[in-house]
């Protein structure tokens, strides 16, 4: 029972990161109308930038967080013109083109990380940065500061985004574009600048996720982005592309499922089992459990 509770706690904190990733991904999908397959790679790149800044500044956490957010926003905004050029009109095949461009960007980021940083070896974050201190311990059950922080920031960030989307004027503009871009343009919503806002917002979110991932994992490697990318897209598909509440439920569920599998199965097989579960759900419901919101 203790293993179960401990793994559920681990799973919730891991799931909160998936939720943040899926939320950022869905935001770009709904408002900018792109399938940003490389979004997790952007997050990974920000992790590497945070690591560099930590090394250069003697472990200044504030500067690392700022650099991580800045890097993520910069890449997102820099890639915006590429996507805008391709997304001339909103049709399925055009959305697919953005996905292929995004995969290309992902290839570039992954290979730059494998060649340009730490000789392609995995990086590890300093002890001071990683939230490894136990706030509470009872047998096998422990609550680490990193887990609490990631869960708290996750809840705050997702609540903030939901508040922004459903309680503010800007949020209404985002949702209007997601619902009907032509109609949104007719009522005077600027598609271009609102789209750019969504790039910036998901960039900020990406920077925060990078820091939380560093806190949770304590390391990063060039291949991490691809693996997370596939899980994030799988979560979005299972939830229903563009479905924010669905992403919340499925993201948390995947985190808990993965942790439980890791708790009860040998490590080398746990990832495969998680992927098999994702595959089975995707094959059974290719359009998602909660419905596509596009």
């Amino acid at each position, binding site marked *: 029972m203790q293993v179960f509770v401990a793994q559920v706690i681990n799973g919730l904190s891991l799931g909160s990161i998936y939720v943040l990733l899926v939320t950022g991904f869905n935001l770009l999908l709904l408002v900018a109308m792109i399938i940003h397959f490389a979004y997790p790679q952007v997050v990974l790149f920000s992790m590497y930038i945070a690591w560099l800044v930590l090394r250069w500044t003697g472990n200044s956490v504030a500067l690392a967080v700022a650099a991580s957010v800045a890097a993520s926003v910069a890449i997102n905004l820099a890639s915006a013109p590429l996507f805008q050029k391709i997304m001339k009109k909103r049709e399925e095949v055009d959305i697919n083109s953005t996905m292929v461009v995004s995969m290309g960007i992902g290839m570039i980021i992954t290979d730059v990380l494998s060649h340009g940083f730490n000789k392609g070896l995995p990086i590890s974050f300093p002890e001071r940065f990683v939230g490894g201190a136990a706030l509470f311990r009872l047998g096998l059950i422990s609550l680490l500061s990193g887990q609490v922080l990631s869960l708290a920031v996750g809840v705050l960030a997702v609540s903030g985004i939901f508040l922004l989307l459903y309680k503010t004027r800007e949020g209404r503009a985002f949702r209007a574009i997601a619902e009907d871009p032509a109609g949104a343009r007719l009522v005077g919503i600027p598609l271009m600048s609102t789209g750019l806002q969504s790039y910036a917002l998901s960039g900020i979110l990406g920077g925060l996720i990078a820091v939380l991932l560093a806190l949770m994992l304590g390391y990063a490697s060039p291949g991490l982005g691809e693996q997370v990318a596939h899980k994030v897209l799988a979560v979005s598909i299972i939830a229903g*592309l563009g479905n924010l509440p669905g992403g919340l439920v499925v993201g948390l569920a995947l985190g808990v499922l993965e942790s439980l599998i890791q708790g009860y199965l040998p490590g080398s097989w746990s990832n495969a089992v998680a992927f098999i579960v994702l*595959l089975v759900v995707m094959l059974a419901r290719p359009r998602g459990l909660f419905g596509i919101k596009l």
Partner: protein
Amino acid sequence: MSLPLYYFLTVTAINVLMSWALYLPYRVAHLHFLTVANMAISGYLGGWLVQNLGFSFWAALPIGLAAGGLLGWLLSLFIGDAPTFTVVIVGFTFIYITRTVIENTAAVGGTLGMFGLPLVAATPALHRWALLALLYALVLLVGFWIYRFDHSRLGRAASAVFVDKDLATSFGVDIKKLGRLLQVFSSTVAGGCGVIYGFLYRSFHLDFFTFHLVGLFMTIIFVGGYATMWGTVVAAPLLYGLTLLFPPEIASWRIVIYGVILVAVLVLKPEGFITRRLVLNLERLLSSRRKKNFTHKESV
């Protein structure tokens, strides 16, 4: 034949076949990355049959083809008409599962891979010629089938599905059946390529079947042109040959180079270099020349 030329020709042929395996399902807007997983599964299966059960390469090859087709068929029952992003992610998920299963299966060498696969012919020189002939015979055969498909009613139906699924359905196209047909065909081709790929290097290793391979095939079809089969024929040798010409320190960045080329082409020339219009114009030009020659001979 020199070894570098042999490897250039054989790897190019594999790249052409595998890119066609991606091109065909993309005719109905499916990016079917299951092909790379199929390549690994059939390849390892073929290697295991030869090394552990004493099968010959020529017996393992059809089994590899059949295994690829069977797996493609099974999955196509579920994703025959799924949206593109679902097909993409199912493919990637399958690659991960395949890698983990192979890594943990001692019978196929686990993380170390399989080494010392036998020659497919009596001598090393014959082995090379046999594989080269087999690969280019496959290129011709698969190319002929794809050409016939592209110029058939089914090919036109696929084009209609690519542009507008609802419109194609209203014209009576069975989207699911067409998607399944193309997915099974591409999986079969990938299965065969997997077996040959391993015997080319006489070994199998998981590093052969990475996401870099997906990136390379994707770059070949999108840079060459996804709307016709000829784009692949032009782009495969150029893109692979290009990195061979670079000095090693630049060639090691080939994935970045492919990525930059892919993004640039998709932004600047979305249909790739060999467009459908270009192929049509060339076909018209050739047929008008043929007509001129014919009328000239008649008058003479």
